[in-house]
C-alpha cells in the first residue's frame, strides 16, 4: 500500500523538481524579467487537483528550497507559496469548474498574489524594485498555464481515474 503510494508520488515529485530546474535555468538577460513562476504553477496544479495530498506543508518546504536556489531571504518564497497554495485549496472546487482556457484567467489573481507578496516582503526587507517589474512573470505564467495543465495531466498520479 505504502509502496504503491510512493510510486504514485514519484511522478509528482519529478514534476516539482523539473519546475525547480526551470526556475534556476540560465536565461538570456532580456528574458529574465519574464521568467514564469514555474514552481508556483506546478504547485497550484497539484494542490488544486489533489488538495488533500499536497498541501501547505509541501509548499513551504519547496519554498525553502526555492529561497536557497534563488538566494532570497530564507522563508520568503516559503511564506508566499504556502499563502498561494492555501488560497488555491480554499477555492479548489470553484477553480476546477472552469475549462482550461478560462482557467488561465482565473489563475491570474493567484499569480498576482504570489508576485505582490514577494514585492511586499522585498519592500519590508529594503530591496526596492519598481512594481512594474513584477508583472512580467504573471503574464507569462498565465499564458503558459494551459500548457502546464496539459503536460501535468499526463502525469500518472493516480492508478484510478476517479479521484473526486
Amino acid at each position: 500500500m505504502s509502496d504503491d503510494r510512493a510510486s504514485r508520488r514519484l511522478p509528482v515529485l519529478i514534476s516539482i523538481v523539473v519546475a525547480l530546474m526551470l526556475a534556476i535555468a540560465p536565461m538570456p538577460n532580456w528574458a529574465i524579467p519574464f521568467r514564469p513562476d514555474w514552481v508556483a504553477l506546478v504547485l497550484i496544479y497539484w494542490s488544486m487537483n489533489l488538495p488533500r495530498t499536497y498541501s501547505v506543508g509541501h509548499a513551504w518546504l519547496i519554498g525553502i528550497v526555492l529561497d536557497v536556489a534563488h538566494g532570497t531571504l530564507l522563508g520568503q518564497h516559503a511564506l508566499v507559496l504556502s499563502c498561494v497554495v492555501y488560497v488555491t485549496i480554499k477555492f479548489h472546487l470553484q477553480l476546477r469548474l472552469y475549462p482550461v482556457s478560462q482557467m488561465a484567467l482565473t489563475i491570474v489573481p493567484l499569480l498576482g498574489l504570489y508576485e505582490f507578496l514577494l514585492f511586499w516582503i522585498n519592500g519590508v526587507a529594503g530591496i526596492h524594485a519598481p512594481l512594474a517589474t513584477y508583472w512580467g512573470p504573471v503574464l507569462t505564467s498565465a499564458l503558459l498555464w494551459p500548457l502546464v495543465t496539459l503536460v501535468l495531466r499526463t502525469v500518472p498520479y493516480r492508478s484510478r481515474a476517479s479521484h473526486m
Partner: protein
Amino acid sequence: MAAGTDSQHRSPRLASLGVRFLLLCGLSITLLIVDQRENHLDTVRRAVDAAVEPLRTIVDAPVALWQWINDTTTSRSDLLLDNNRLRTERLLTQARLQRYTALEAENARLRAMLEATSRVRDRVRVAEIMSVSPNPFRHSIVIDKGTRDDVYDGQAIVNADGVVGQIINTGLLSAQGLLISDPDHALPVEVNRTGLRTIAVGTGEFDRLDLPFLPNNADIAEGDLLVTSGLGGAFPAGYPVAIISKVERIPAMSFAEVSAQPVAALNQIREVMLIWQSDPSSDSEVGDE
C-alpha cells in the same frame, strides 16, 4: 480508497489546514526576520544548497555541453588565427611593460616628493568609516581610529574632495565624528573669490548647508567656492567646503538666503582623512632642513 478517506475526514482536515497554514506563516516570518538580522541560518542555507547543487549542474549541462562541442570542433585554421593574434598581442604587451618599469620608478619618485611636502604642511591619516548614525536627523559617523592613534576631540575630518566634519567623541579604538551637514554643526568659512568670512551651518540634508549671516549686499554669487577660514581653530585653513548653490536676496529681510552644496559627497564616503595641524614652530624646523 484514498478518495474515500479524503471525504470522510473532510471537515477536520480542512480545519487543520488553516491551523497549519497559520503555523507555517509564523515560522516563515520568524525565519525572514532572523535571516535578515543575523547569520545563524547560514548552516541551513548551506545544507539546502548542497541539495540544490545537483539541479544546478543538470540545468547548466546543456550550456556546458554546447561549449564543449564548440571547443572541440574548432577548426585548425581558427586555431592558427588565434595563435597568430595571441603572439602579436604578447609582443605588444611586452613592449608596453618595458615602459611601465620607467613609469613605476617615476611614480615612486613623485610619491616620495609628495609625501615630503605633505609632511611640511599637515599630518594626515586615513580612517575608515565603521558605521553611520541610523537616525536621519543626526549626521554622525564612527571611524576606526581612536585615542590610541592620537585622535582628539574637535579634530578635523576631510576626504579627497573637501571637509567632511569633526570629531566629537573619542574612544580608545574608535571615534565619533559629526558631519558638517548636521543641524548642530557650524563651520567658519570664507569665500575663496573675495575672502568674505561667514559661518556655514548644517541643515540636516546631506547636500545643503545654510549661510544665514550674510547681509543682502554681500558680494557672493552662485558657484563661489567656500573654503575653511581656519579662524575657528578646529579646522586648518584653505580646505574646500562647499559651492554656493543658491543666493536669494529679499529686500524686506536684513540677511540674504544663501545655501551651498558640500563638495564632499557626505552620504557616499567610505574613507576619510584625519588632519593633525602642524605647529608653526615645527613647520619652520622642517623648512630649515
